[in-house]
């Protein structure tokens, strides 16, 4: 499957809840980036493993994640 996960990075508060629900453990915090709000935002480490289950998006309190599949 080809999936696409888009983060509205500027709005991420780095709470890490999304990292706890990914069945593939590919949602991670990107410590190399500091966003506009001053947080390390979430990102996907290896999109090829994504199954587009949208778990990360469902738990995101700030609704900043969009999941698509091809």
């Amino acid at each position: 499957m080809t999936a696409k996960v888009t983060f509205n990075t500027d709005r991420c508060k780095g709470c890490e809840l999304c990292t706890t629900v990914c069945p593939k453990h590919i949602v991670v915090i990107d410590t190399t980036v500091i966003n506009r709000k001053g947080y390390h935002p979430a990102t996907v480490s290896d999109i090829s493993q994504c199954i587009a289950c949208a778990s990360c998006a469902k738990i995101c309190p700030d609704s900043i994640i969009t999941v698509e599949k091809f």
Partner: protein
Amino acid sequence: MAVVYEKTKGLTDVELHYCPGCNHGIIQKLVAEVLEEMGMLDTAIAVCPVGCSVFAYKYFSVDTLQAAHGRAPAVATGIKRCRPTQPVFTYQGDGDLASIGTGEIVHAAMRGEKFTTIFINNAIYGMTGGQMAPTTLIGQKTTTSQGGRTAEQAGMPIRMAEMLATLDGCVYAERVCVADIPNINKAKRAIKKAFEKQMNNEGFTFIEVLSTCPTNWGMTPIQAVQWMKDNMIPYYPLGVIKEKAMEV
């Protein structure tokens, strides 16, 4: 390309002011998704509380009113009685609903007012800096129970869903949480059922959602979810507390 999940139209584009990981954001999103799926974004009316969710009126993309502390059920009563065909709900914290507004919620449930209440139980007063709430657990440290809540001094924590379920006017009471995906799915189903029962004119419907307050609990958002699971669920059991069969 197909969109599997995107932000619901039930929420506006305003950035939430909640602390990182606060469950208020997840719960509001579920309510907004249900309103969108049920085609009620043009008709629903929300009554928002005083507490951290005081700004929820900016977040739900439906008509909203912001009530005085604890008085959302009284305001919702007035709205629903004037607009009986429209979906009406209150969104209230435990300080708002179980403390200053105990009278309003009990009497709205007793009268069987046909609106839905979404009750956010995070066992603390979040907005004002972490004081003890009626729902604070025994032993839980807050700024006003610094050695931990004791039953001798403050009594046992109040179980609102069970208490309201004793009233005939309350037709549906369920307790849920949003700790993980299975629980998020269950919470959404419960919220949807409450709105369906409201639209069937069955009576007062009540969904208690166990939530977290990482900031005032002094934990990371992930630790807070674990603390909620370990400590709150044993005292506040999840599940349907009351479901009255519809009279035909």
